[in-house]
Structure formats: C-alpha cells, structure tokens
C-alpha cells in the first residue's frame, strides 16, 4: 500500500514535471544543448585565438643594430616576423598593443661580440599578452640560435668539443601513463565539478516547485486533505527531485563525452612538438563509476533541497534560501579541482569535496577501493540523515502552514 501511494505521487509529479518548461530546460536543454555549445564553443574559440596569434606575422621594431648588419639581416630572415621602421613612440605602441615587441640591440653589438665582451639584447614586450609572448618567443629563439652558433664557432676555433659547455643533459621523463597525467588531472577535476554542479542544479527547480511552489499555488492544502500520509507524499516528491537531479547529471556526462570526442576529431593534427597533448576523453567505465558515486550525493542534494524549500512560503523565498546553498556546495567542488588537493582520510569524510576528489581520480581511471568504500558509505549516511530530516520537516504543521 505504501509503495503504491509513493508510486502514485511520483507518477503524478513526473507528469507535471514533464509539462513544466523550466524543468525541461534544466533537465534536457542545459546538459544536451547549452553545455556542449558552451564548452566546445569556448574551446574552439580559444584554439582559434591561439592559432591566429601563431599564424599572424607580428611586426617588430628594432632599436640600434645599424652597426651590426649580419644580425639585422638574420632577423629580417626569421620566418613570420616583419621588421618595420622604428618609431619614436615605440613604448606607447607596445603598451597599447599596436606592436607586440621591440628589440633593442646594443651599440656596436658585432664588434663587442668579436671582442668577447659581455652584453645584453633587450626584448621590450607586454608580459602576459598572447601576441606579444608569441612574437617574443620567435625573437628569443633567433637570438638563442645565433648565440649557440657563436659558441660553437668559438669552441671550434679552440679545437674544443661542444660537450665542454654541456657535459650532460637533464631531461624529465614521464612514466605515468599519459591518460592519467598532465592535463588529464585537471580534466578529471573539471568533470567532477560539472557532475556535482549539474546534479544540484537539476534538482533545484523541482524541489522548490514541489514544496514552496505548491504552497504558493494552494495545491498543498488540497493534497493534505487527501488520505495520503505525509511520509509517502514527501517520499514521492523526493523521488521526483532525485530523478531530475540524476537525469541532469547523467545527461551532462554523456553529452560531455560526445562533445569532447567531437573536439578531438576536429583537433587531430596541430599538436606541435614540446606541447602537452591533452586528450579529452571519458571512457564508459569512468562515466559509469562517476555516476554510481553521484547516486548517494544526488540523494543528499535532493533531501537537503526539499528540506530547505519546504520551509519557504513561496518559490521566491525558497530561491533566496537555496542560492547560498549553491555557493556552499560549489566551493568544495571547485577546491577539488585545484592541483595538490588529494584524497586523505579526513577529506574523505567531507561531503561533496570527497565525491569530487574521488570522481577526479575515477575519470582518469584510478580506483582507490578503500576510499571508494569510505566515501560511498559516508555519503550514504549523510544522505539518509538528510532524507530523514526532510520527512520530519514535512510532518511539521508549523512548516507546512507557515503564513
């Protein structure tokens, strides 16, 4: 009888939710349309910007160097830079980003070079500006190569091998599998953040609509005059909130997996040597395990959302209670994205943060079974406690008939 009642309530709430434009937008449009558009669009825009900065031929002004013709002509031959005549206000032009860099060659550069005097070539740039950094890189490379050739010539003149200056090389060698290191680490944290955020976001509107919204519309009194017990009523509502939260989270993981594979397909070639290759990829196993870990978290969210919003008299009031909750939940999820925050026994007991940290590991395919057990169990405990609170809240006349 009780399961039947909960089922009746759930079915009715589902019917209503699927006819509610706001629920549909949060549940389907955000994860399936908006999200890929934003992430893929944003990624594509960044890639295009970087590509454009690389393709562009930066204009470079040179101060001095009239007495060093071979350096100057070498500079002129550097591919994809254009040496333009020096103007008096060159500093302002760099500051105003009209020109990316200005090279200052000291007076008598080549003569001093021949005399083996110490000297410095200055590159005036705009630190942090993408175009300026790209142009500076090209100029630096030219001068470094030039310096190396000078060194080589000097060593050759003294009959010394190159190893005199460079007796050995130091080189990092990554032994971690590429799918578990580098950018993938950040990527895992990002997925966890998205799942936590959309899980909460998906349950927010229905939770407020089914409690505070019903009080506002006057249907709460109608349903309370029927023989259904309040426990069954709140459990039916809870199941609906849980459904929307999980659907939103699941759809967002799926749509992210799809949109990243599209990005990867579009982006096969331009990884140049020396750049870290971040392949964005979510495997089926990773997606499934993230989803399983998100289950008790979704129960926790749905219960907390219901508890808080059933206290409110109107949808608007509920919104003003829920907004701070959003920050409280999002902060640990963001903290989990930060590099260096790693799972330990204490963090494994902090709700939201623990699941976010774990999901970060799960996405890159690392399974710490002891942590998985602790986190799943602790989140279940929190979830059951929150659900119990939601049910208790619904039994209270002072909460249901606040006016």
């Amino acid at each position, binding site marked *: *009888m009780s399961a039947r*009642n909960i089922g*009746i*309530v759930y079915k*009715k709430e589902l*019917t*209503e939710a699927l*006819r*509610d434009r706001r629920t549909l937008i949060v549940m389907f449009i955000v994860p399936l349309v908006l999200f890929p558009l934003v992430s893929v669009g944003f990624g594509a825009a960044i890639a295009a910007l970087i590509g454009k900065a690389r393709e562009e031929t930066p204009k470079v002004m040179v101060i001095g160097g009239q007495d060093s013709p071979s350096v100057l002509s070498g500079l002129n031959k550097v591919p994809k830079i254009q040496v333009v005549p020096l103007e008096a206000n060159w500093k302002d032009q760099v500051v105003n980003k009209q020109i990316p860099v200005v090279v200052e060659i000291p007076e008598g550069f080549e003569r001093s070079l021949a005399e083996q005097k110490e000297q410095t070539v200055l590159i005036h740039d705009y630190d942090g500006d993408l175009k300026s950094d790209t142009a500076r890189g090209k100029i630096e490379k030219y001068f470094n190569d030039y310096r190396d050739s000078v060194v080589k010539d000097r060593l050759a003149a003294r009959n010394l091998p190159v190893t005199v200056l460079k007796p050995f090389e130091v080189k990092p060698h990554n032994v971690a599998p590429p799918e578990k290191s580098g950018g993938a680490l950040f990527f895992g944290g990002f997925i966890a953040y998205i799942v936590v955020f959309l899980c909460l976001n998906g349950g927010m509107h229905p939770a407020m609509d089914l409690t505070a919204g019903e009080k506002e*519309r*006057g*249907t709460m*009194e*109608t349903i*309370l*005059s*029927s*023989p*259904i*017990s309040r426990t069954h009523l709140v459990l039916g509502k809870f199941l609906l909130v849980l459904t929307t939260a999980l659907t939103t989270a699941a759809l967002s993981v799926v749509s992210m997996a799809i949109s990243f594979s599209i990005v990867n397909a579009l982006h096969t070639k331009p990884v140049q040597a020396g750049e870290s290759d971040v392949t964005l990829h979510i495997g089926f196993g990773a997606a499934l395990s993230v989803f399983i870990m998100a289950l008790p978290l979704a129960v926790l969210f749905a219960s907390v959302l219901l508890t808080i919003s059933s206290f409110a008299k109107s949808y608007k009031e509920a919104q003003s209670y829920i907004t701070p909750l959003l920050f409280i939940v999002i902060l640990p999820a963001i903290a989990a994205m930060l590099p260096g925050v790693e799972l330990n026994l204490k963090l494994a007991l902090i709700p939201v943060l623990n699941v976010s940290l774990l999901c970060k590991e799960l996405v890159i395919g690392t399974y710490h079974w002891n942590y998985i057990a602790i986190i799943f169990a602790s989140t279940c405990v929190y979830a059951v406690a929150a659900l119990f609170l939601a049910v208790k809240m619904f039994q209270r*006349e002072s909460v249901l*008939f606040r006016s």
Partner: protein
Amino acid sequence: MIRSAVKFALWTTSVLLAYPARSMACSCGHDVIEQPEKVRANVGFLSTATALYPRLTAQELVEYFGRLNGLDEATLKKRIDDIFNRLDMNGFRDRRCDKLSTGMKQKTSIARTLVHDPPVMIFDEPTIGLDVMTARTITAFIRECRDRGKTVIFSTHVMSEVEKLCDTIGIIQSGKLLAEGTLAQLRQKYSENDLEEIFVKIVAPHYVPAEAH
C-alpha cells in the same frame, strides 16, 4: 454560516490538515489523532484555499485523488464517468487545469472532493464567484448528495442556498456558535420569516467591523 476569520481554523482541524486537539473526538469510527489518514479518507474537503494542479488535466487530477483514496482502476473509471456526466464536465475533461474557467475549476474541485464517495463532505463557499447556471448545477448536486444520505457541512453567505439546502443551520460569529436549529425553529424563535433578517438579528449585537480589530 461561518465568518472567514474562524473558518479556516475550523476547517483545517476538521479535516486534519493540521493536528487536531485531543478534544476533537472521532469521525466515522476512527480516532482523529491515531488514524488521521483514515479519517481524511472518509471526508471530502473543498475550500477556496484548495487549488488544482495547473499542469494536470481535469481528468488526470480527479484520477490522482481517486487513486490516493485507494480506488481500483475499474471503480475509478466508473466514478469519474458518473461525476463528469452529472456535473456536465465532459467538454473539458482533457483540458489542463490552468486553462479552465472559474466554474470549470470549481466543478473539477467538486469532482476531486467526491471521487471516493466519502460519507462526510465539507464545502466552504462552493458557489463563490460562479455564474448562476454553474452555481445551480453545484447546489443541485449537493442536494442530491444530501438526499443519498451523506453528511454535508456547507458554509456560505448566500441565504437562498441555506434555505434550499440545509437541514440544520448554525450561525457562527467571531468563533462562537450563536444559534443552531432547523429553518423552522429559527423562524419561530426570532419571529422573522426571511433568513437574512434572522441572521442580522442574531449577529448584529456581536458584530465588530473588521477595521476595529
């Protein structure tokens, strides 16, 4: 006839929306504190505060409450067909409640209240804001319920409805029951024929205009 200030408290308590005081005894053999759900199943409750779910159709809404009252699908279908025919509701069966007119909404509310055929019905101003024809359909339906042996508690400010429908009349002002009896008894006691005059005679000495509170 009950004035609104007290009305809601009385109604909520009588239908156990809120928890009743221990002094509220029993209804249809069920203790109101021990088995509130069973008591609610025996009562059909309609007030101006009981709204309809905007995104359900009239039929879905009545079905929902029928199922919550434990009706099986066959009985439910029969009950719904009966009530919808009787209240002339077939024209808007599948229309969403937020698209219904006031009269249609009120009819749907009544169908919702009575779908499980409760022995006790409580109607709080069921004809308020309705056109004459709809109001007539509703009062006629309530009279039928009475004639079928149901207990109907009915509150209204429309004296003609009271004269037509009520076996026992209670006049409540500021939370106090000032008079009770059949129409004939009240007429005799206050030596007036017109119910409105009787009402004024009873209430006037106790009447405090709302602004004075």
